[in-house]
């Protein structure tokens, strides 16, 4: 039966089904979370306190910070593709790093050797953004289908497990020293 044909009456629906089980009432305890708890902003631009800008700049310079902002792709790769995935990385990671758009840097793809994998999968691909414009550049670079960069990113993502319910999680991160909650 199509959804639109199902009556919005419990009794009518029960009559259609033709059998009755036991009535049950369950409590729903909603857990509301917002994924946006920090203002996304360039930590080295106008509006950010000078001390925070300095801390971020120094952190990047001394490599205690990876970059001004990070993009993390978390995903799984089906078991039968893992060997080909590793081969692809061996052959293409260097080019991927070289071909990044301005203010974008490829920071590697990692496999989770230990930790919880149920929700976010076994692999992480990390992108560094030197400034906020890198986010637009990365989007534009991936969308430019004629570019070698877009082809490589597409091939990389082609290994992702795209089955329904497969673990997948993407995040944009900023240095905590410059993260203001709202």
């Amino acid at each position: 039966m199509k959804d639109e044909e199902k009556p919005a009456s419990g009794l009518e629906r029960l009559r259609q089904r033709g059998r009755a089980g036991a009535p049950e009432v369950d409590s729903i305890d909603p857990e509301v979370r917002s994924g946006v708890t920090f203002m996304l902003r360039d930590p080295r631009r106008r509006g950010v306190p000078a001390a925070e800008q300095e801390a971020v700049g120094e952190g990047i310079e001394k490599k205690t910070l990876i970059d001004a902002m990070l993009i993390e792709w978390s995903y799984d790769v089906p078991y039968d593709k893992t060997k080909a995935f590793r081969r692809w990385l061996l052959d293409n990671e260097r080019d991927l790093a070289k071909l990044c758009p301005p203010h974008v840097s490829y920071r590697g793809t990692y496999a989770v050797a230990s930790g919880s994998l149920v929700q976010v999968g076994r692999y992480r691909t990390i992108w560094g953004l030197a400034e906020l414009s890198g986010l637009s550049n990365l989007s534009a670079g991936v969308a430019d289908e004629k570019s070698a960069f877009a082809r490589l990113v597409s091939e990389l993502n082609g290994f992702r497990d795209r089955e329904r319910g497969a673990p997948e999680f993407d995040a944009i991160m900023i240095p905590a020293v410059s993260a203001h909650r709202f």
Partner: protein
Amino acid sequence: MRLSEGLRLRPLPELDACLAYRREPPALLRLNLEAWALLEAVDETVEAPDQQRDLLALLAESGWDLSPDALSALLAPLAARGLVTGAWPPHAATSHPHDQRKG
């Protein structure tokens, strides 16, 4: 018997279920199809004797005991969750509730 004051229902026919928001104390509840149908059938504020009769017939066909005590037991989960108030007429199991009101 009637629905509790301020009770709001959101049918989910695609899932054979109904969401209920209870105001006092605030709670969100999920009713399965049987509980949802019972809720509709016992609401005295709705003039729906046919619904009550249909429900009872269906329950009887499903092999349920329709004695007053058994019906009270069926309604217990709804009452325990504060979805309904009042008593279910004990005569409903054996005769048409509309006829009872006429008498």
